[in-house]
């Protein structure tokens, strides 16, 4: 099977390069036969990579430890669930997974793109094939997943215990799906640059793809945070680790793009900028891959050092240079079709939205690279830790939150003073009111106050938008208000779906702000003894150690501590935290014991308990107790964000209007409205 996989990789390389050549040449010379061949190459590429993936999975499931990848990532007693995820739990396998998913997306693009966007397809096929070929060549020359060992071990080394968590089964593929799918809009952008068909049409062709990849990135980031929270045991979900930052960068850029593209659709402006954002998001996704796979920045999740880094560096530089040259040569073709009319307009607010999002991306990038910069420039090694990231980025984040409220309140083209007053009165009142209540309630943390009151302001704007829309429908069609809200959502999915995403962002910020009120303590308890910890909202939590039990599970020996939990003296449940000593099929210990956190999650606080260890091998145990306020809202906010994203994405609803078609009616309509409000 591994031989088959290895051959199919070679086949994939040949087919990929063929697709790249025929796509570019066929597109440039307008030769239909070559174009057709490039299209077919994307299907063949997917076929070849699918065979490679199946070969590797078969090797994993058959426990073929003569394959190095299988021997170093899995073991006989690894639960089936994690045998699946072993495919992408290591360098080589994840490269294969990446290439295969890219080829799937590439083939789907060829199948699903119809009608007038077909002119772009040969170049799209060429770009996607080229990128996939790069990944395949890295595997063939530097990180072969099918590499064999000189001997066959009895059992594999097993999977890192921290990866044996449901979060790790879903987090990498989601994140990869996000990363990988950026290649499709990128390929369309390159195609548009090459064909010089740079009107807004190509953007419409890829809008769905950009939202799809934004959504996957969002889900990937959220699951990653969840995994870090439930598995790593330090009590937080975001450590500003380079790997996390690398995933956040394209997300920020994509978010900026989702907004600024609306200006292009409605007004035919910002063409250069939007194109640059798409190209930039893709370059950042490759940059992130380079960062995390080369080991340039030592980081908790970094894959080990290997020549793979050099390949990525080369690819990054070459692709960036080629893209930049192409972009610059086409700049004269990208002229705006309209001009801005007022500083106080939706257009202008989107520009500030973009400024903030890109500013944040720059800031995160700057912080990630600053240790390298410092070492290179002044020769001093420094740490740019979470406190520094927070110091620099919290103000930016809160400004972004503020803009999320302001932006949607400002009309297109030009907002009048009366219009502004009418739009802002209620939300601002809500925000100020929230601030006062919190101040009176005794909250003094500046950032948290900012997050909560700005959040209230944004919620106020969204509720106002929904209420106005629903009331208008109610008056006009006599629809009951709940029905009217649903109708609004389904009629104008983009706008109201977007607003729901904004609510998700607010909830996320509420959850983030909760971290300001974390409390923790360590305690040594014998069975029957208790530790007390007061949450910042005044409740007293009592944890009573009930005892230690030890037992064996499939691939591990467990030591579990059970605790009884009371709030203000009333029993609210039990918590269990474990030490897990993983073993191989022969009962030999594999990794150092890992810790399983015990979490009791609630709307107000999460109780988070970690078993540090036992004293002298007795049931007397050392625990760390942490009270994490509002963490639940992070997950809930993420859920809302994803739902909003799905609403935006759902097919149907109003079709996208292009500048020059019916969009001008919209503008005329807004002008009517504004004039009327004077």
């Amino acid at each position, binding site marked *: 099977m591994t031989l088959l996989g290895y051959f199919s990789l070679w086949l994939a390389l040949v087919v990929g390069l063929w697709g790249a050549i025929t796509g570019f040449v066929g597109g440039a010379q307008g030769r239909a036969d070559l174009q057709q061949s490039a299209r077919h190459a994307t299907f063949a590429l997917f076929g070849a990579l699918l065979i490679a993936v199946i070969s590797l999975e078969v090797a994993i499931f058959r426990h073929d430890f003569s394959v190095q990848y299988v021997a170093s990532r899995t073991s006989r007693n690894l639960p089936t669930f994690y045998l699946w995820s072993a495919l992408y739990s290591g360098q080589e396998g994840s490269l294969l997974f990446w290439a295969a998913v890219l080829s799937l997306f590439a083939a789907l693009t060829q199948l699903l793109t119809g009608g007038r966007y077909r002119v772009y397809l040969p170049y799209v096929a060429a770009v996607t094939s080229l990128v996939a070929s790069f990944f395949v060549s890295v595997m063939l020359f530097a990180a072969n997943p099918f590499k064999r060992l000189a001997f066959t071990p009895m059992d594999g080394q097993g999977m890192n215990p921290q990866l044996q968590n449901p979060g790790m089964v879903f987090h990498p593929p989601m994140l990869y799906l996000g990363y990988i799918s950026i290649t499709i809009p990128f390929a369309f952008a390159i195609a548009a640059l090459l064909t010089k068909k740079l009107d807004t049409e190509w953007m419409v062709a890829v809008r769905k793809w950009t939202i799809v990849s934004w959504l996957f990135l969002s889900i990937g980031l959220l699951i990653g945070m969840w995994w870090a929270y439930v598995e*790593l045991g*330090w009590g937080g979900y975001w*450590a500003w*680790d380079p790997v996390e930052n690398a995933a956040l960068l394209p997300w920020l850029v994509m978010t900026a793009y989702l907004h600024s593209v609306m200006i292009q659709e*409605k007004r035919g402006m910002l063409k250069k900028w939007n194109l640059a954002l798409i190209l930039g998001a893709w370059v950042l996704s490759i940059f992130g891959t380079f960062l995390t796979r080369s080991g340039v920045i*030592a980081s908790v999740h970094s894959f080990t050092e290997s020549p793979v880094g050099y390949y990525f560096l080369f690819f990054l530089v070459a692709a960036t240079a080629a893209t930049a040259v192409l972009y610059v040569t086409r700049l004269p073709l990208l002229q705006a079709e309209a*001009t*801005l*009319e007022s500083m106080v307009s939706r257009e202008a607010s989107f520009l500030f939205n973009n*400024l*903030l999002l890109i500013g944040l991306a*720059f800031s995160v990038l*700057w912080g990630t690279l*600053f240790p390298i*910069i*410092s070492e290179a420039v*002044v020769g*001093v090694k*420094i*740490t740019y*830790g979470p*406190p*520094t990231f927070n110091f620099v*980025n919290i103000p930016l984040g809160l400004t972004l939150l503020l803009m999320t409220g302001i932006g949607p309140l400002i009309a297109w083209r*030009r907002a009048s003073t009366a219009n502004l007053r009418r739009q802002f009165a209620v939300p601002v009142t809500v925000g100020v009111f929230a601030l006062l209540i919190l101040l009176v309630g005794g909250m003094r943390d500046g950032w948290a106050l900012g997050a909560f009151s700005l959040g209230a302001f944004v919620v106020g704007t969204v509720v106002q938008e929904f209420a*106005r*829309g629903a009331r208008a429908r109610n008056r006009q069609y006599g629809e009951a208000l709940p029905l009217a809200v649903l109708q*609004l959502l389904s*009629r*104008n999915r983009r706008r109201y779906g977007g607003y729901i995403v904004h609510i998700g962002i607010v909830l996320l910020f509420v959850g983030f702000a909760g971290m300001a009120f974390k409390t923790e303590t*360590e305690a*040594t308890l014998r*069975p029957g003894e208790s530790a007390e910890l007061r949450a910042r909202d005044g409740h007293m939590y009592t944890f009573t150690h009930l005892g*230690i039990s030890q037992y064996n599970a499939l691939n591990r020996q*467990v*030591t579990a501590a059970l605790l009884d939990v009371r709030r203000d003296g009333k029993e609210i449940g039990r918590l269990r935290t474990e*030490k897990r*000593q993983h073993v191989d099929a022969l009962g030999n*210990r594999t990794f150092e*014991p890992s810790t399983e956190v015990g979490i009791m999650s609630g709307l107000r606080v999460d109780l988070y308990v970690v078993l*540090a*260890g*036992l*004293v002298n*091998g*007795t*049931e*007397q145990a*050392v625990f*760390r107790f942490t009270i994490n306020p509002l963490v639940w809202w992070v997950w809930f906010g993420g859920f809302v964000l994803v739902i909003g994203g799905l609403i935006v994405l759902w097919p149907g609803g109003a*079709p*996208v209007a292009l500048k020059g078609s*019916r*969009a001008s*009616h*919209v503008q005329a*309509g807004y002008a*009517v*409205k504004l004039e*009327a409000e004077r």
Partner: protein
Amino acid sequence: MTHGVSRRDFFMLAIGAAGAVLQDTTSVGRVYDPDRAGRAQAPVTAADNDKNVQALEKRLRCSCGCGLDIYTCRTTDFTCTYSPALHQQVLRMLGDGKTEQEVIDAFVAQYGQVVLMSPPRRGFNLLGYFVPGVVLVIAALGLVWMLRRWTRESPAAAPTMPAAPPPPDASPAELERLRDELDRLPG
């Protein structure tokens, strides 16, 4: 941080710690297989839980390569051998009567600036702290300037409205209806 742990406090803490270790643990049952529960832990002392000690350790980075601060590492990664040792070093220095700043300075002298979770706000490091903010402010000013130019150049700036302005006496209800109509237009 307002005050450090005084020498006297520290003496008391040390006595407490010694007491805890010496305490009779035989009244607690031994578990079946202590080895599988990871490294044995010493009972938590008051110094371990001291808010000032914790705050101090949160400013210092563990040298095991985990990227965490000493406090977080020693209370999270129980396989790390560095963070407990660094923790003891911190306690020892405090016990010797060093102030918090002196402890920090000693760590920097021993391990270099990299030991600080946030680099000191001076010299080259200022770039690390303030470049993003400054760039953003400059970019914002640039954007405002550009917007001004655009809006002034804009031929539409003077006569914003389409040729035939509508009757300006629309009622609020009519405006709502208009909004809704507009909502239902594509785009």
